[in-house]
């Protein structure tokens, strides 16, 4: 049986569970108080109000989906919140040590941040020149005579409702008292993204012609019927590079974002969580089936 850790409002988990319900136990951290749980030295068990249960005897794998989002634990009592988080982490550790996990660990990007990943990716792909820092040293950046974009390392909200998406900036006009994550601007025709799911690579492209701004993440068309992403055929060399990169960072899950420029793939970033449903919203290309198969394996 699979222990599937997520939140109760997660749409991806909802879509997967019509094919996982007989096989997986969904343990939502935002409604933890609706479950019963006991963990002892040699045994643990969780039950939900409908009587579905999972235990150390029946569990084989654990998949932590939407790995970084403990914030939806809507508990004001900090002590209680930290204790609950601890228990979820302990359960996950149990699988790491004594069983196995699916997907990537919730703390993957704490070990491999964006800068580290770009450094590793440089062995396999063309990568954009990147510069991160603050203060006067940043005036000497290798990007100083280039067109540059500002990005966010954390993708965190800057205020309660704003985030920094990829934006073209002028180095001379930046307030260097703030930390900046800058990259050379790539003139690209397409966004390319590869979803890694076990042994499968699913690659899609999206033409940038109709893009408003520079970042497809902030387009207002996630829920359009129109399929913006279309399958993209990788060359053998590109496929090998992706597999080698994944092997180097020891992952079999996640999504790599590229830009296509002059028929070359330019590595942008690797996303450990690996959101995939937006690539195949009508279930035309078999992503859901591949994910279900991977989780069931």
């Amino acid at each position, binding site marked *: 049986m699979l222990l599937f850790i997520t939140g109760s409002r997660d749409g991806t988990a909802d879509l997967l569970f019509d094919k996982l319900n007989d096989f997986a136990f969904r343990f939502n951290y935002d409604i933890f108080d609706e479950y019963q749980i006991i963990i002892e030295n040699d045994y643990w068990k969780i039950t939900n109000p409908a009587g579905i249960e999972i235990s150390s005897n029946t569990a084989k794998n654990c998949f932590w989906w939407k790995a970084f*989002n403990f914030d939806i634990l809507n508990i004001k009592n900090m002590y209680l919140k930290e204790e609950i988080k601890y228990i979820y982490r302990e359960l996950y550790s149990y699988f790491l040590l004594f069983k196995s996990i699916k997907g990537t660990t919730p703390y993957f990007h704490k070990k491999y941040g964006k800068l580290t990943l770009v450094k590793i990716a440089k062995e396999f792909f063309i990568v954009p020149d990147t510069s991160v820092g603050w203060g006067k040293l940043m005036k000497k950046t290798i990007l100083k005579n280039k067109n540059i974009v500002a990005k966010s390392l954390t993708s965190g909200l800057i205020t309660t409702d704003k985030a920094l998406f990829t934006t073209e900036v002028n180095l001379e006009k930046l307030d260097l008292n703030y930390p900046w994550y800058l990259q050379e601007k790539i003139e690209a025709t397409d966004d390319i993204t590869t979803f890694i799911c076990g042994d499968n690579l699913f690659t899609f492209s999206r033409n940038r012609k109709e893009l408003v701004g520079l970042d497809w993440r902030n387009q207002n068309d996630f829920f359009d019927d129109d399929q913006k992403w279309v399958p993209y055929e990788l060359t053998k060399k590109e496929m090998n590079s992706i597999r080698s990169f994944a092997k180097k960072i020891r992952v079999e899950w996640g999504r790599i974002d590229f830009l296509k420029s002059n028929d070359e793939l330019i590595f942008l970033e690797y996303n450990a969580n690996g959101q995939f449903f937006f690539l195949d919203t009508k279930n035309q290309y078999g992503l859901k089936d591949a994910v279900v198969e991977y989780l069931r394996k």
Partner: protein
Amino acid sequence: MFVELITPLMIATTPMKVEVPASVYDHNKQTSISTSNEQVAQYVQRTFSGTRTYLPNGQPFDSDND
């Protein structure tokens, strides 16, 4: 002439928001069911929270925009 320097806040924008329908979690099916009795996440029209996580009012509440 004084030129105001750009800070990250000045170039931040508001992420897309969606209205998430009222729903209850069904422990039998292990999925969220909207109060109009449809699965909250559907393929064709919408995958609520499918690409980001939102508070029930639709506000993004997430440091994971992938």
